[in-house]
């Protein structure tokens, strides 16, 4: 097992290297640069800026120097927010996004699973239809509709929570964004769980277990659920990576100081170093969670072995 983990971590290095290299050069293909703006700069001023940020060096040299800095854990300064280094921005923003994403993930896994199991056990009955309808609505209504609706009802009309803002991480400020993030995930998990559970309940070993006279609770939880968890785990890996690294819509609408917005803002602003930083962070999260998923497989499914 340990050897497997080590091997996976080692293969992650060339993967990361490839991602960094590709992103670095793809970014430079995009027209415009960090200093293109409504108010044009005189050529002299532009030249000064490019010299200060070493953008005047040949591209290959910029690439090598970026790679060298990266190996030392230096993501460089942000071009558009020069008061901060990319690392600074992540130090402040990532904990915020992770907190929200983790809350949403836990909510989604627990609520989604319960809904899915209940629906599967009551297949083609009222409860099942209600869950399916809810799941469809949850995954089709976009967050940019849900978020303002939440603000309108719970903040403006009922005045239970603030409209937006992080409030230093106060619970009342987190409810809205966490729920908005969680809702579509709850819907997806519920649907996955329902499908997997229905299939698992029809499997031969379950029929055998029932025939052997095991109680229905024990059949569902010990045997069927274990098999049904596999698709949930495969989904939860990438979903966790996406949730923990923030969402641009939720963070913008709720004015949350997370890192989700950087993915879009930095790319639009041609903030090369910040884009590269976000790419590396997302890549690391995805690689990490894929590994966790694979390890969980082995834990849940006795047929999977990594020796």
């Amino acid at each position, binding site marked *: 097992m340990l050897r497997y983990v080590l091997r996976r971590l080692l293969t992650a290095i060339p993967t990361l290297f490839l991602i960094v290299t590709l992103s670095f050069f793809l970014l430079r293909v*995009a*027209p*415009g*640069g*960090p*200093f*293109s*703006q*409504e*108010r*044009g*700069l*005189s*050529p*002299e*001023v*532009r030249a*000064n*800026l490019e*010299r*200060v*940020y070493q953008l005047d060096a040949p591209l290959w040299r910029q690439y090598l120097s970026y790679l060298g800095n990266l190996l030392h854990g230096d993501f460089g*300064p942000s071009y*558009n*927010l*020069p*008061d*901060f280094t990319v690392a600074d*921005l992540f130090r*402040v*923003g990532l904990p915020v996004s992770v907190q929200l994403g983790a809350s949403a993930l836990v909510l989604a896994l627990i609520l989604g699973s319960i809904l899915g199991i209940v629906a599967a056990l009551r297949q083609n009955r009222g409860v099942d239809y209600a869950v399916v309808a809810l799941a469809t609505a949850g995954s089709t209504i976009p967050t940019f509709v849900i978020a*303002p609706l939440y*603000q*309108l009802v719970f*903040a*403006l009309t009922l*005045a239970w929570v*603030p*409209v*937006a*803002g*992080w409030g230093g991480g106060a619970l009342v400020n987190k409810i809205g964004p966490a729920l908005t993030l969680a809702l579509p995930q709850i819907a997806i998990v519920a649907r996955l769980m329902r499908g997997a559970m229905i299939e698992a309940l029809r499997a031969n070993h379950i029929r055998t277990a029932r025939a052997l006279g095991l109680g229905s609770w024990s059949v569902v939880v010990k045997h069927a659920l274990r098999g049904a968890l596999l698709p949930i785990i495969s989904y939860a890996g990438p979903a966790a990576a996406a949730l923990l690294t923030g969402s641009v819509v939720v*963070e*913008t*609408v*709720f*004015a*949350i*100081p*997370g890192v989700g*917005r950087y993915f879009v803002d930095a790319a*639009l*602003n*041609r903030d090369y170093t910040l884009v590269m930083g976000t790419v590396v962070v997302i890549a690391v999260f995805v690689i990490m969670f894929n590994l966790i998923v694979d390890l969980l497989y082995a834990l849940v499914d006795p047929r999977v072995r990594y020796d």
Partner: protein
Amino acid sequence: MSRFRSLLIATLLLGTAALPAAAESIYNRGNSADPESLDPHKTSTVYEAHILRDVFEGLVMQNATSDLIPGVAESWTVSPDGKTYTFKLRPDAVWSNGDPVTAEDFVYSFRRLEDPATGAEYASMLYVIKNGEEVNTGKAKPEELGIRAVDAKTFEVTLKSPTPYFLEMLTHQAAYPVNKASIEKFGADWIKPGNLVSNGAFTLTEFIPNDHIKLVKNPKFHAAGEVKLDVVNYIPTEDRSTAIKRYEAGELDSNDDLPTEQLADLKKKFGDQVKLGPYLGTYYYAIKTDKAPWNNPKLRRAISLIIDRDFLAEKVWQNSMLPAYSMVPPGIDGYTPAEADYAKTSQFDREDEAKKILTDLGYGPGKPLKLEIRYNTSENHKNTAVAIQEQLKPFGIEVSLINTDTKTHYGHLEQKGDYDYARGGWIADYKDPESFLGISRKASGNNYSNFDNAGFETLMDEAAAAGADPAARMKKLAEAEKVLVDELGNMPLLYYSYHEIVSPKLKGWEPNVMAVHPSRFISK
């Protein structure tokens, strides 16, 4: 007994200590975007200007109505040739660490602005100072910049040529003083809360990106007695709809922008809390004037005649913009913008004239005119372009639209890429027509139209030469604008207006064309 007494005293002390905190006056100020930087030499946008105006104080400043007032300089004199400005610094001007603000501080700051190693975006603004451009382009040493400290409290600036708007320029944040000792001590981190030494009405205490910037009253500020607010929180309000809801819920006391598509509803709901008025900014289309067929001013005129600006202002922009026929918007004292001659004729007459021009030039069913409009991503820019597309269509002009993100858009224009018409916008840095006309000068980095007109250049030069005589200068500038507008070096479409929402609880918020609202004049 003595223990009881000390307890009593302690309780009383605690009580009095808590009192001022309870009465703290806090202004939660919505600001469309976070600053790119808090280093005055590295900023360029109005969002930064709002904050820096509270944190720093330049030689001269703006009051609540954006008029020029003394800042660190309590008085100044201008030499008869209009080239030398001598500023007398106020004796009580101090940094937030208690050190006096001296002429040497301004020498250091101006040199830093022009030093190529700083990479200051606004270095070019102060090219009007002798050797400014030379220093910034590395042809002269920073020590050769035309400034000097005559003594600790006397600062002297020598200009290249008389520049009547020099004082207005000095209100820009790029001309604020920065603290040499703290820059040398902390390097790039000098602008961090806790490190930042500044000389304005407020000091920086917190900056959490995308969350808030907290400023507290600076007790060492020379006019601290007149500053009513204890705390100003600048809250970035990227999402305008959320900003309005936060305002409604009392989380914000004001916001510097509104979702203009809801303007009519907002006015109904909030009444005179919605502040709307002319702002020194022009929304225009740049035209590739050095490319056929757009090198023909007659054709450029025909296009301009057809565009119904009233429709754009009313229907597309919900009257959050005003129809424009000149590059310089109204609102600058002593200057009358040179409007296009068709500003006062009816849309029907304009269209008739346009039809005639197009026929004369041979355009018609057999020879359709193709025009490409480029714009940067924004719902309103798109709607404007689509409206113009529809307006030009009946005249046989086939308009195609190209939408790109902002960086691609301006990157394309900077590199003099191929295009026909392209969206542009210009907001005044300082209250002077030069700010709007200078962008069409041949050598300007903002001359996206590649406008190259000898008459215009001559008049602009003459205006500069008439610097010492403000009336004569304004006249020359108006003549230059007339050339620009007649030749359609750019096609002005709309004047910007400010649209803000301000709580009735705030006192001292005065409407003005620069949308400048220093927190030191505001109370709550």
